[in-house]
């Protein structure tokens, strides 16, 4: 078993994702990512355009906005920005923007580990291209595969976690 610091070190499987904060602003929350999430950021995200909601921000801008919101400690409104996925016992979460779904889990309070990146429209409609139940399974699979210190995830009240 290894700590987050070790896992996000030069040879570790996790990436410590950061975003430049304003002068004098200190990070209040942490964001780590599995390799699959980073592949999504580097390969898929640059190609994506705004979807059905015709959002004002591009998906690339949305990614920066949600990272900035999370890391700088600004309010994460339940369901609008951050939401636990059903069934609740799985402790899989999604960070949300108009066009993006950042699936992952809470390792410790205020420490999110992103498993993979999804495109919101793929999960919408009567016949969605992708299903939330699969997303939950993917989160659990990647969580199990990371050699993290136990417990590998945390649970609790929203305000205490976020």
């Amino acid at each position, binding site marked *: 078993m290894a700590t987050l610091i070790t896992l996000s*070190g030069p040879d570790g499987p996790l990436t410590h994702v950061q975003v430049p904060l304003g002068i004098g602003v200190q990070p209040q929350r942490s964001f780590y990512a599995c390799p699959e999430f*980073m592949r999504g*950021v580097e390969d898929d995200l640059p190609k994506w355009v705004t979807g059905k909601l015709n*959002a*004002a*921000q591009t998906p690339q801008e949305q990614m920066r906005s949600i990272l900035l919101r999370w890391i700088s400690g600004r309010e994460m409104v339940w369901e609008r920005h951050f939401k636990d996925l059903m069934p609740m016992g799985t402790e899989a979460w999604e960070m949300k923007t*108009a066009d993006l779904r950042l699936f992952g889990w809470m390792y410790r309070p205020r420490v999110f580990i992103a498993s993979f990146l999804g495109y919101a429209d793929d999960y919408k409609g009567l016949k969605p291209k992708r299903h939330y139940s699969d997303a939950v399974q993917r989160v659990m699979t990647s969580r199990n595969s990371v050699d993290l210190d136990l417990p590998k995830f945390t649970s609790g009240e929203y305000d205490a976690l976020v």
Partner: protein
Amino acid sequence: MPSFEYELDKKSEVGSDFITRVNEELQRALVTEKQARKITQQEIADTLEINRSVVNRRFMGLENLTVRSIAETLWAIGWEPLFKVRKIAPQDGENERAKPKENSFKLAPPPPPSSPEKPLSASGFGKSVALERV
């Protein structure tokens, strides 16, 4: 694997940050108004003669807002935008456009009846717009 810093070009960041601020101000206005009086999205939609889902998207920050839709949505809840611009202050050793100073977009409730300012008209005109050089 090393850490990863997510950055966009400055132009995108400036535009995106401003959209975020406008959305947050809209949401703040609605929350404040909901706390002050019971106002529903359906009432706002009826006032604006638009679908409730459009109102919901506007307040959720999901709608691509126009200047007109910002003003009209705020008017429907009894608020108005207060818009100012100013020149970016040059920073030591940096390009003048590299670091925009805090922008000054804020929303405020309409002035009280005793205020000498002209109240917002039903047409949505009468918003205060000012230029400020810093």
